[in-house]
């Protein structure tokens, strides 16, 4: 084994180093793993004969939530959207809130894996598989919401421009149709980006698989990737191009989500800042979710060597940056409400910050803007319980933000006589938590069967380190 020739001390087989608390000054990979030991370790997590006990236990609640989601959907299809809290004038309720919330979470994963691939950031290597997996299931959770919201979901294919006997076309000038195309493209692209990035690792899994069943499963999935020179040559170029495509795609997707709102002449929505405002929010909630998954997975899968204090430090800094960008958007929202001469805008904003739903608005400010300010301190950026707390707070805060945007604008229309209110029903909550269950079930199943570290990229990192060490 050549890679042992590096200058770093090796932990002998079975001999564990005492766990070190993560520090911001940690390298991207801790000294110790070689490309062989890294491969064995990451594969072993997925190739285990027996499922981890924690994984089985963790699956219980999400599976129950999925049952609830299925019941909620069946009841919805049977009884119609009247089972939800939506009515005039608040016709967009939880379905749209949850949709925007989930798609924002999804976008964050693509930011990490595509954008930071293009910047050649080494720290991305440890996190991109987790981030992409998260994107996949968050996008799936997002995608079902607008369809449920349609009222007659079985006619959703009318959104496709297909030749039909009614000679009708969808309305190409509508941001809602743009959104359909954006989400469709995004979901399909995310699946292919994830799968393409997984191909070399699936080949590794195929070659390490112990049982026939695993050999067949990973063998079929790997499609015959063998790591030949030609395969690698095309692979790296194509992966780079895909990353370069995914980065603008994700910006366009969330900007179009912003335009869903901004293009309508609704009070509080009709603002040119919505597309970037939504993209900032996407970055923040995506980073928070990656942290929320990376902290426990690092411990549970024994990835301490690959996800180090450096990763927490970088992600928390990015969290802080996106939180500040979002703060700017909140301030501009307040500013334009008063800068414009529209009385309805001003009234709506005052209602938002002082009215009956003001706690939701202030919760968003507290959780999205105030709480992440803790990340100014380096010692707090590597404090895992605190990271979890802040990230979880941001996830909740982002949901509150979407609630503020959707509900508070619709309930205060231009015409005071048309003012209304909104109360979510049990079925609204059941759908929301059902999608949360769907998300975690997906993540846990992926953790069970797929390598959670991008092994072929990690090899590059480890090999580079060994060569550097040998040269010195």
């Amino acid at each position, binding site marked *: *084994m*050549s*890679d042992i020739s590096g200058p770093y001390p090796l932990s002998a087989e079975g001999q564990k180093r005492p766990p070190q608390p993560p520090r911001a000054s940690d390298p991207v990979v801790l000294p110790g793993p*070689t*490309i*062989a030991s890294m*491969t*064995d370790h990451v594969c072993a997590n997925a190739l285990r004969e027996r499922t981890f006990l924690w994984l089985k236990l963790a699956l219980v609640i999400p599976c129950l939530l999925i049952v609830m989601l299925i019941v909620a959907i069946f009841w919805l299809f049977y009884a119609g959207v009247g089972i939800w809290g939506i009515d005039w004038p608040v016709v967009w309720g939880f379905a749209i809130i949850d949709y925007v919330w989930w798609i924002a979470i999804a976008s964050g994963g693509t930011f990490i894996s595509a954008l930071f691939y293009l910047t050649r950031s080494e720290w991305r290597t440890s996190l991109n598989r987790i981030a992409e997996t998260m994107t996949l299931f968050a996008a799936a959770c997002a995608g079902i919401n607008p369809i449920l919201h349609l009222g007659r979901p079985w006619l959703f294919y009318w959104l496709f*421009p297909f030749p039909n006997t009614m*000679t*009708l*076309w969808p309305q*190409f*000038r509508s941001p809602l*149709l*743009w959104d359909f*195309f*954006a989400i469709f*493209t995004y979901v*399909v*692209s995310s699946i*292919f*980006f994830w799968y*393409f990035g997984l191909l*070399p690792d699936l*080949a*590794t899994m*195929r*070659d*390490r698989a112990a049982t026939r069943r695993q050999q067949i499963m990973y*063998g*079929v999935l790997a*499609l*015959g*990737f*063998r*790591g*030949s*020179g*030609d395969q*690698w*040559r*095309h*692979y*790296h*170029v*194509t992966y780079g*191009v895909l990353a370069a*495509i*995914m980065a*603008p*795609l994700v910006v*366009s997707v969330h900007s*179009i989500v912003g*335009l869903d709102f901004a293009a309508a002449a609704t009070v509080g929505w009709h603002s040119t800042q919505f597309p970037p405002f939504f993209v900032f929010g996407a970055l923040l909630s995506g980073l928070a979710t990656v942290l929320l998954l990376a902290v426990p997975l690092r411990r549970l899968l024994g990835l301490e060597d690959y996800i180090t204090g450096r990763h927490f430090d970088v992600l928390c800094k990015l969290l802080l940056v996106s939180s500040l960008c979002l703060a700017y958007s909140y301030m501009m929202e307040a500013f334009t409400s008063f800068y414009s001469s529209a009385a309805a805008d001003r009234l709506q904003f005052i209602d938002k910050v002082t009215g009956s739903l003001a706690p939701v608005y202030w919760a968003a400010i507290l959780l999205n803007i105030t709480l992440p300010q803790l990340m100014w301190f380096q010692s707090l950026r590597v404090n895992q319980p605190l990271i979890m707390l802040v990230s979880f707070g941001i996830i909740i805060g982002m949901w509150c933000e979407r609630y503020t945007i959707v509900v508070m604008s619709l309930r205060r229309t231009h015409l005071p006589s048309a003012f209304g209110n909104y109360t979510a029903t049990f079925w609204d909550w059941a759908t929301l938590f059902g999608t949360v269950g769907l998300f975690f079930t997906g993540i846990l199943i992926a953790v069970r069967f797929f390598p959670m570290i991008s092994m*072929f*990229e990690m*090899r*590059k990192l480890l*090999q580079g380190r060994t060569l550097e060490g040998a040269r010195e």
Partner: protein
Amino acid sequence: MIPVLVASFETEAALCRAVARLRAHGIRALQTYTPKALDEDEQGKSSLPKAIFIAGMLGISAGLGMETYADVISYPLDIGGRPKFSWPAFMPIAFEIGILCAVLTSFFGYLIVNRLPRLYDPIDESLSLREATRDGWVVAIRGADAHTRQRVRQILERFHPAHIEEVAA
């Protein structure tokens, strides 16, 4: 049938040196199998980006064309006197269709260029190849006659390969 000569090395550097020597001796029909891309692969050329770019541009044009056909020719709608050909509003969908075409071309183009999926290849019979996705560095020479194989063996031996074997193809 001409057997495939498969040699595996313990280090990337040894493989690269051996391959360079083989090439210097005029043996071109060789293929490396490695756990990560070699530097030469990473900097290698590929025709895929061009194909992806063309597919993306075609997708954008086709999307724009479809929207124009729908709103100008097939079913024009006068909405408050707005122009029938309102191209700025057509751009987002055209862009997304272009992206979708590019992504699908990347993935399926990659499979086509590499003639995948190919679940079985005679070279899979080689024991060294299973290590090539972990930390084995393998080179395979196909279609060489007995004399050439002998010569290749002699060259490779100088670089101390971990294994040399011949696999029936």
